[in-house]
């Protein structure tokens, strides 16, 4: 199943991914969307182009019909499949909420065109939060009066190590809030948010759960909404990598901020508190770990960020614990 990696997309495939409406997204292969994320990484689009793509690609989360997903969840999936799925998806449920609320402060110190892109991204993240809220209510069957009540109900599936990247992002957002034009603080924040959480963790969750849903022919609304989410993430990752690339080109000493942030993140990523069983979803821990290496390597290579030997060694110790946002 692990066939993600550099693969050529035809112009027709790119047009299909870029132009698909919500119903057509069901027919799009998640591997092609993940490849689409990387398509423009070497010559990243400007923020206005990303904003114009957003206007064409935004979708209505309330158009999804989860009734077949509910049947698949309760009648077709095994308990082992459900537990594995929740162990992975719950990190994304909470991750979407986190990235939604941590992004607004980053907009303060951004350029005008970048502000357009970030405002669109905030709306994307809010929509993704509602997507997971609906999935947990209507498919998993969690009950609660509001969004936080559903987050409370799914939190038991979230690993204790989730606080590593997402707590760090919260504190870095506070650092940016206090000094919104501190470019070094912004680069550290961008490394955690755009490179690690979105570029590595999120795309890996998408690949694992969506390839499972496609392989088994289950959860069509989840596949549709989360594949559309992945297309949204392509804009976020490209915008985030453009920000980091521009910051390093403008001031090459910014690479130190990226390295220092990765030093903390990779130290934390070398620890797991729970064993996640991936086999019911068609994956092994080693395959997921390899997937994360691929995602990190492609982002770093494409934007021209090299790792010193100590960080390269730390990459080899990363544990396959997935979350995203």
């Amino acid at each position: 199943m692990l066939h993600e990696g550099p693969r050529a997309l035809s112009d027709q495939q790119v047009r299909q991914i870029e132009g698909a409406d919500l119903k057509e997204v069901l027919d799009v292969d998640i591997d092609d969307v993940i490849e689409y994320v990387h398509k423009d990484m070497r010559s990243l689009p400007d923020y206005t182009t990303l904003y114009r793509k957003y206007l064409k690609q935004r979708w209505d989360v309330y158009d999804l019909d989860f009734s077949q997903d509910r049947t698949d969840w309760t009648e077709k999936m095994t308990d082992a499949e459900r537990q594995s799925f929740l162990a992975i998806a719950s990190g994304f449920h909470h991750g979407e909420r986190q990235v939604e609320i941590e992004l607004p402060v980053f907009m303060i110190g951004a350029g005008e065109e970048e502000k357009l892109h970030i405002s669109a991204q905030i709306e994307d993240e809010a929509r993704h939060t509602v997507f997971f809220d609906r999935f947990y209510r209507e498919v998993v069957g969690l009950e609660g009066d509001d969004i936080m009540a559903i987050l409370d109900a799914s939190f038991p599936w979230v690993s204790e190590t989730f606080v590593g990247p997402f707590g760090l992002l919260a504190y870095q957002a506070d650092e940016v809030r206090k000094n919104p034009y501190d470019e070094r603080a912004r680069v550290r924040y961008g490394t955690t948010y755009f490179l690690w959480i979105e570029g590595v963790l999120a795309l890996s969750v998408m690949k694992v759960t969506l390839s499972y849903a496609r392989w088994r022919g289950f959860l069509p609304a989840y596949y549709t909404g989360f594949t559309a989410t992945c297309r949204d993430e392509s804009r976020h990752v490209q915008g985030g990598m453009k920000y980091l690339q521009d910051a390093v080109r403008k001031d090459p000493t910014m690479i130190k901020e990226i390295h220092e942030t990765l030093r903390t993140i990779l130290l934390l990523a070398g620890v797991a508190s729970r064993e996640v069983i991936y086999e019911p979803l068609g994956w092994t821990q080693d395959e997921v770990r390899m997937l994360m290496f691929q995602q990190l390597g492609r982002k770093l290579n494409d934007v021209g960020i090299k790792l010193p030997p100590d960080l390269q060694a730390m990459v080899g110790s990363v544990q396959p614990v997935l979350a995203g946002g």
Partner: protein
Amino acid sequence: MTEPEFFSPEWAAAVRDALTAGPPEQDRAGKLPMYWDFFDKVKASYASSWALGCRDLPAGNAASLYVQWGGGTVTGCRVTGPGDQPAATFVLGMDYADWQALHDGYDPQRTVMYRKILVEHGNILEFFKSIYFFTECLAIIGRVPAGFRALAAR
């Protein structure tokens, strides 16, 4: 026996004993050995100090719980006030209501992620290198019996 008042010298002494003892066995049993190896490794070499502040004690003042680590144990743990503020590696702040929520069982991870407790002074990247150690310690502190005055009486 009545429980010590929150942010009293007696409470600080109980926190010191609880942190020195570390997480209870039932906590350890619920997480992978790899996680506790990391916790134990950090604890053995940790030489930083925390000033864990309460911004709005009912008496109307701010105070901190100063915790100094060294040699794998707590070497100092006391409540400090405005006239007694030793320099700490990491100065953190939290509101009284959030301290009470932590005591009542609110999750320490979410206490961090939802910024109920924040680093006010100190290097964030360095602080996070030991975040799993910190959140486990926060859970331990939250479980130490403490008397909280009713918020309505404030």
